[in-house]
């Protein structure tokens, strides 16, 4: 059986890759996909702990995280469609009306 630590390290690596993507990409869809990647890394940690502690609660948490991620994706992608209609751009640096 693969130790829990291996899964946690993998989860940390994937989360960090997602953070790098959100910080460096300027395309709003790509940033959104990196957020999904981070959510999945957290899910992996939840499931690793669920197995380690012999409890089912971690898997229930992952279930709810996935549900919220689906709702978030629907609303976020609708916002992206509105953005493309109004500004004709996907570059988040172009969307700075609320920047002081």
């Amino acid at each position, binding site marked *: *059986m*693969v*130790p*829990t*630590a*291996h*899964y*946690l*390290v*993998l*989860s*940390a*690596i*994937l*989360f*960090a*890759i997602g*953070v*790098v*993507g959100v*910080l*460096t990409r*300027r395309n709003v*869809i*790509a940033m959104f*996909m*990196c957020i999904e*990647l981070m959510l*999945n890394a957290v*899910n992996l940690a939840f*499931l*690793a702990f*669920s*197995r*380690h502690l*012999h409890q*089912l*609660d971690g*898997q229930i948490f*992952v*279930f*709810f995280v*996935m*549900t*919220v*991620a*689906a*709702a978030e*994706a*629907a*609303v976020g*992608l*609708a*916002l*992206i*469609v*509105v953005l*493309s209609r109004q500004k004709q751009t*996907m570059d988040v*640096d172009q969307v700075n009306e609320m920047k002081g």
Partner: protein
Amino acid sequence: MEYVVFYLFAAVSVATAVLVVVQKKAVYSALALIVCFGAMAGLFFQLGSQFIAAIQVIVYAGAIMVLFIFVIMLVDPEAESYPGGSLRHISFWAIPLAVMLVFLLIQAFPDFLGSGAGSRAASAQPEGSVENIARALFTQYVVPFEVTSILILVAILGAIVLAKRSD
């Protein structure tokens, strides 16, 4: 054998995750992300959560990524301008900072990194089967489960209202 499977899926998921970040076109990022989710479904299965692995493939790699690709085709994003000028230093520092973040996250769980940190007796482990998940979901977690349906409904309404043409 288990280690071989684990490292195979781990390598695929990390490689495709890097591809998601470095690909310039959003479509290629989305395709890499689908492969990444598939590999992670394999890891979930290996962790004994069959139901979550199936949901991962159906909901994430299926529904959510299809939604992403629909929107990418709908809005047709041009090749993005990679951060230049004042933002370039962020890209430069991102890699060392990410490595530091990995070590920081690993340090958060020192108890699990010692020797023999593997799982204890595997026999007492509750299976992540549909039956067990459903029993927990409809008894102990029935209220959050019902609230989730309201959340989905609100998300549907919000998406429709936002994406509707206002003319």
